[in-house]
């Protein structure tokens, strides 16, 4: 049985269909990367897995439990086994880095302050953020915030980690750092991960399988090597990063020759 089972998942906001009959299975210990253009429902998929949104039809099951059918207390139990890393980190800005990482531990475990301190230090070390315990989120750069967000997500020792566009808006070097941190977390913690990203380099480094969402549907879900040679023109256009092709609904502006551009 798959650890995460997405079955015929559909979700619309008013007339806009965001997800349409999406099927995905993620096995224990597997790392799935979900690619797709902006507004194709990648974040909506993660929010359905976390139970932050309710599907219009279909369902998401985590460890065999259908998320939308759980009571609130049961849902909170399942959520303790999932770590969510938000696109902009979503750190609690009234708290220090230490308090952010310790938040889940204080709420759900009867640990001594020493044990909490040890666990927070351990989590911050794993993401290369030791020594920042007393800083406030406003004092951190974008990449640092994401890493503290990772530390907060792993503090409760989850079985599953979900990354929502962890490298968006970061410079290429920091993007590589974040990619390495995700790989380290995957190997050291042995967790199952779903990562949403636009960054193809880190996607191919992280992924055991790559899925591509296109206009609300999952049009490919395969091993990275197979994904690279997938003949689907949408997949190939996405890999080339070219504006011309079937990927965009509206035609892109025509390409100007360099001479015309200077004239």
């Amino acid at each position: 049985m798959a650890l995460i089972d997405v079955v015929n998942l559909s979700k619309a906001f008013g007339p806009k269909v965001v997800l349409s009959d999406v099927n995905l299975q993620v096995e224990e210990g597997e790392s799935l990367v979900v690619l797709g253009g902006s507004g194709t429902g990648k974040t909506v998929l993660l929010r359905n897995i976390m139970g932050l949104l309710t599907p219009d039809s279909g369902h998401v099951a985590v460890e065999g439990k259908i998320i939308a059918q759980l009571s609130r207390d049961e849902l909170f139990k399942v959520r303790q086994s999932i770590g969510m890393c938000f696109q902009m980190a979503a750190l609690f800005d009234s708290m220090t880095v230490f308090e952010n990482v310790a938040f889940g531990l204080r709420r759900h475990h009867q640990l001594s302050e020493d044990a909490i301190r040890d666990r927070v230090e351990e989590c911050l070390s794993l993401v290369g953020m030791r020594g920042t315990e007393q800083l406030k989120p406003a004092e951190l750069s974008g990449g640092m915030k994401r890493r503290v967000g990772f530390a907060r997500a792993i503090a409760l020792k989850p079985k599953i980690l979900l990354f929502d566009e962890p490298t968006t808006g970061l410079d290429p070097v920091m993007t590589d750092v974040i990619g390495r941190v995700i790989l380290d977390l995957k190997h050291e913690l042995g967790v199952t991960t779903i990562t949403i990203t636009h960054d193809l380099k880190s996607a191919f480094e992280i992924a055991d399988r790559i899925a591509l969402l296109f206009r609300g549907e999952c049009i490919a879900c395969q091993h990275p090597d197979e994904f690279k040679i997938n003949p689907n023109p949408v997949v190939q256009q996405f890999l080339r990063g070219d504006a011309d092709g079937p990927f965009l609904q509206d035609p892109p502006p025509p390409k100007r020759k360099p001479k015309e551009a200077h004239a």
Partner: protein
Amino acid sequence: MVLTLFDKLGSGLLEALDTAGDFAVLSGRTFAAIFKRPFDGANLMRQFQSVGVNSIPVVVLTSLAVSMVFAVQLAFGFRQFQAEGLASQVEGLAIVRELAPVITGLMLSGRIGSAMAAELGTMQVTEQIDALECLATDPIHYLFVPRLLASAIMVPLLTGFSIYVGFWGGYLILVGVEGQSAFVYASEFYKLLAFRDVQIALTKAFVFGMIIALVGCWRGYRTRGGAEGVGNAPTSSVVTSSLWILIADFFLTKLLLV
């Protein structure tokens, strides 16, 4: 034309019912979450500090100003009938029964209700409330309950303090300026009052405290649309809670004075 009018009226009514229902459900969930675990004492203390201690200067200044202006008006009015002695009695009655709870409620809806709406609104648009959910923490339990408890306890205490400050505001004018005897003022201030009046004032303040916290948290929690939404949340919170404070004041007065 007529159909369009009915259509608009119908959709407006449905929207109003939807909003009222949403507020009622969130309020119900807040009351139900009061006794849930875990109990976060540090969070509650922070709210006591923010709602209560930090509001003292505002309460002192407004209570002093209102009681002094009211004393000036009473002294002037009763002088027309050579009945200056009644000014301190009416001052006491007005401050304890109406001015202290209502002015404190309205000022705190502006100070703490708007702050709650802005804080929760910012948390909503920056996904911090989703982060709470993902960390298996009920935002109603973590955010609403401490604010409701702090507000329901601190607003009556601040109202008691406002009555005390109001006494000295009246004293400054009626004794200091109008030349009444300090001894007479002190005894006349409480002459028309019974202990029940203080109870009524504190009951009103307790209800106002709940209105301020629930409306502030609700408006913040339902914030949508980025900076514009965060900007609208405090304004809408202050307007809504002020209106409900005045409406509740009327019904509580009618109910409690029977």
